[in-house]
C-alpha cells in the first residue's frame, strides 16, 4: 500500500530522521525509504523546501560539510528547539491517530 503524506507530516518525519544525527538531504531521503519501505511516496525534491523552512524556523541548523563520498554536501542538525518541536508534534500525532482510530473502530451497537 502506498500512502500520500499529509500536510505537515513530512516536517515531522524530517525532524525524526535528524534525531539519528546530522544528515544531508539525500541521507534523509534514504532514511525515510529505509524506515517506511516503499509505503511512503515522497517526491524527493519536496524535501528541500521543507528543510529550508525548518531552518528558517530555527528547528534545524544547516552547515556545509563533506559527505562520506567526499562530496560537498549540506548537513542538517536538529537544534534544541527542533527537538522540543518534534516531541510536541509526536505527542499530538499520537493523540490524533488514537482518536481517529477509536472513532473508526467503533462498532455499531
Amino acid at each position, binding site marked *: 500500500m502506498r500512502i500520500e503524506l499529509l500536510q505537515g507530516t513530512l516536517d515531522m518525519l524530517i525532524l525524526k530522521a535528524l534525531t539519528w544525527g546530522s544528515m*544531508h538531504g539525500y541521507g534523509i531521503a534514504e532514511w525515510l525509504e529505509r524506515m517506511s519501505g516503499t509505503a511512503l511516496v515522497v517526491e524527493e*525534491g519536496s524535501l*528541500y*523546501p521543507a528543510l*529550508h523552512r525548518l531552518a528558517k524556523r530555527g528547528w534545524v541548523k544547516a552547515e556545509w560539510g563533506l559527505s562520506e*563520498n567526499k*562530496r560537498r*554536501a*549540506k548537513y542538517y542538525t536538529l537544534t534544541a528547539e527542533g527537538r522540543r518541536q518534534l516531541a510536541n508534534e509526536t505527542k499530538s500525532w499520537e493523540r490524533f491517530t488514537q482518536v481517529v482510530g477509536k472513532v473508526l473502530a467503533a462498532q455499531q451497537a
Partner: protein
Amino acid sequence: MKWKPDRYGGLRSLLWRRSVDEDVLEEFEHHIAERTAANVARGMTPSAAREEALRRFGDVMRAARETIEIDESIVREQKRMELFDALKRELTHSVRSLVRAPVFTVVAVVTLALGIGASTAVYTLLKTVVLDPLRYPASERLITIDHETPGISAGSVWGMSSASYFHFKERARTLDDLGIYAVNQAHLRTTSEATRGIAVQVSGNLLSMLGARAVLGRLIEVADDDPGAPRVVVLGHEFWQTHFGGDPNVVGGTLGVNGTPMEIVGVLDGGFKLPEQDADVLYARRLHPTMNHVNWHYLFGIGRLKAGVSLDAARAELAQLTSELDEAYPSVYGSGFMEGTKFATRVRDLRESIVGELANTLWILLGSVGVVLVIACVNVANLFLVRSESRRTEDAIRSALGARRGHVFVQSVSESLLIALAAGAIGVWLADGGLRLLVAMAPSGLARVDEIGLSTETVFFGFAIAAIAGLVFALFRFLHGHTDYAPLREGGRGLTASRARLRARSVLVTAQVALAVILLASAGLMLRSFRAMHRVDLGLDPENVLTFPVYLPVSEYDTYEKATRFWRELSDRIAAIPGVASVGGTSSPPLIGSGCAIMTVTPPTRGTDRLDCVPNMIITPGWFDAMGIPVSGRAPTWADIDNQTGAVVISRALADRLWPGEDPIGRGLKVPTGDGPYYTIIGVAGDIRAGGVREPPTQLVYYPLRELEGSPLWGPVTSLSIMIRTTGVEPDQLVPVVRTAIASIDRGAAIGSVSSFEDIVARSMIRTTFTTVLLGIAGVMALVLSIVGMYGVIAYTVSRRRSEIGIRMALGARADEIARMFLLQSLRLGAIGVTIGLVATAFTTNLLRSLLFGVEPTDPLTLVAVAFSLLVVAGLASFIPAARAATVQPTETLRT
C-alpha cells in the same frame, strides 16, 4: 550557518545573497549525484541511473524556486534584524553615555532647542507673511493701483477715483481686468437688532477676479453695478454666523444697510478674504462711466495683468494714461491740479502692497534669530569639545583596542543626532507656542496674521536645522577626535593637543561675544526708539479715556436737525453719568482715522489761490476737553452749531503755516470752489500728531457738526467716534452705563468696539513694540548663551591648568594673582569679541534704520553700554572659576 546576527554579518550576507541560487542548486546536485551513484551501484547504466534519480527527485524547478524563495526571505529577515540590532546598539550606547552626563545633555538640548525654536518661529512668520503666494487665482498677476500726490506732502497716497478707474479700465491693454472696492463703517439693521459693520462696496467683477465663492446663494455680480438693478447684499461668513446664527435660509431676507433695505442674496465663503480687509457685508458700488465723476479718491484698485505682461510694462502704460487723465476728464482734473499735486499712478504687486515694509522687519528678525541659532550651535559645539576632552582617554582606549575610526565616527554621529533631534522636537514645540504668542501680541500689526501657524514645511525646516546642526557637531567632534594615544601614557596630559583645542574654543567664544554685541546693540537701539516714541508728546492726554464709534441709520437721520439733536442728547446723557469728566465726538479719531478727508482751503488774508491739502475733522463741543487738547481762544459750543456761526478751530501747526507770527483768530477759511461763506477761526488748538508719533504735528481744521450753507456739503453726520474722559473711575467700568444711556436715546444706534485710548496709542506703535520685544528676547538669549560659553572656557582652562597653578603657588604666587590671571584672560577674550562685534554692528544696525526712531544706528550711548555690559559679563563669567583657581592647594596638585 550562524543565526545570531553579528557585527560583520551585514557585509557577509551581502556576499552570501549572491550565492543563494548556487547554494540551493549545489545542494540539489549533490542529492541527484548520490542517487545516481546508488543506482549505478545497483547495475543501471549511468544515463538511466541519472534519469531515475531525476524522476524520483520530481519537479526540480519547482523545488528550486520554493527553496530559493525561502532562503531569500531568510536573508531579508536577517538583514533587517542586523540593521535593527546595529541601530539599537548604537542608540543604546549613545543614550547611555548621554544619560551618564545629564548636565551636558540637558544644557546642549535646551540651548539648541531655543535656537531652533526661535528660528522656526520666525521662519514660519516670514514664510506665511512674505514668501507664500496669496490665496487668489493667478495671484502673481494681481496688482494694486493707487495715486501718489507728492505735491501735497511727501509720501501722500490717494486711492483711485471713479474717473481714473474707468479711464484705466477702458484703455489699459496691459490689464486683463480691473476692479475696485471702497470700505465704510455701515449701520446695519437685521430684523432683530441694530449693529454696525464693515461694509465693502465692490465693483461687480472684483469678487470673481479674486476667486471668491459663495457658501449660500450668489455673490455680487457685474449686473449688480447697473443703477437700475435691485439693491442686494452679500453677508460675510463671520457676520452671517454671529448675527444670523448661520441660518441656511438667510438668502431672500432683508438687511438694512445705512437705512436702505437690501435683499440678502448670498453668503461669502469663510475661507475668502479681501486683501487685509475684513468685510461684514458686501454690496455693489454701482459706478458707471457716464456718472457724475468727482475728484474723490476713495477707491482701492485691484487689477490683473494680462498673462506674460510685466509689472514694468503695466507701470509704463498706466503712467502714459495718467498723463492723459486731465484731457479725458477735464471737469475732474484741472491741469493746475495735476501739476500742483504731482499726480502720479502707483502700480504695485499685490503681495508687496500687503506685506510692504513688514518684510524688512521679518528679514531682520530672521537674521537675528539666525545669529542666536549660530551662537547656540557654537555653544553646543563647545560643550561637545569639553566632552570629547573628557572622553579622550576612553576614545584612545577604544582606538588602541582596535575600534575603527569609522566606528568612532558613527558613534559621535548617533550621539550628536540624538541631541539635535531631541532639540529639534522641543524647538518645534517652542516655536508653536512662540507663534501663538506672537500672533496674540500683534493683533493688528501683522499682515496675513490669521494664516500664521506651523505647517509641515516649517516643521521640516526646524528638524532640518536640527539635523544639520547634529551632523556639524559630529564632524566637529570627529575632526578633533583624531587618534591620540597621549592620554594612555602615564600621567599624560597631552598639553599640545589641548592647547590647540583651547584655541579653537577661544575663537568660538570670541565669535559668540561678537554676535551677542550685534544683537544687543540692535535690541538696545530698538529699545531707545521705543522709549523715544513713548516720550513723544502726542499733544493729547490718552489716560483715562474711553472711546468707541457710534453709527446711526443714515436714512433715518436725514436732516441736520435730527443728527445734531442725537449727538447733543448723547453728550448730555453721558456727561450726566457720575465719573465722566468730559465727552466729545470726532469724525476721524487721532491714530486711527486714516481718512482725514482732504480739503482745499484758501487763506484769504494772503490772497493766494495756492492749493493746499488740509486734513480735517468734524468734532462736537467738548471733544477738546475729552482729549485733553488745550485751545487758545475758544472752542465751539452747541450754540455755535444751532446758530450756524461757522466757528472753526485750527491746529497750531496750520496756524503757523498759514499765518506765521500772526494771530489767526478772527480770520476766515473756506473751500475755494463756489462762492460760499468763510468759516471764522475762533480758536487755535494745541498740536496733535494724528498720524502717529513718526509724523510731524498735523495741520488740521476742526469743523463743526453742521457746515455753513453754500459750502460743499458732507451731509448730516451719522457716525462719530465718542471719547469719554473719566475721573476717579476706571474707564471700562462705565461701558454698561454708557451703552444703556445711548440705547435710551435711540435703540437703533449701533456701538462699535470699545477700547481705551491708551490701547489705541499702543497699537499705533505695534511694529516698534513687536520688533523691540523680539530683538530683546534674541539679545537676552545671546547674552545668556555667551555668559555660559565664556564660563565654560575659563572653567575648562582652570581645570586643565590645575597642576600649573599648583606649581605657581608652590613657587610663591599669591591667590589673588592667580585669580587675576584668569580674570584677565576672560576680559581679553571679551574685549576682542566686543571689538569685532562693534565693527560688525556699524554695518548691521544700518539695516534697522527704517525701524529706528529718534536714535542713530551708531548711537554711541547704546554701543558703549552694550560693550561695557558685555565686558562686565565676561568678568562675572570668569569670577567663579577664577576664584576656584585661587583655592588650589599646591600640595594637592604636586602629589599627582
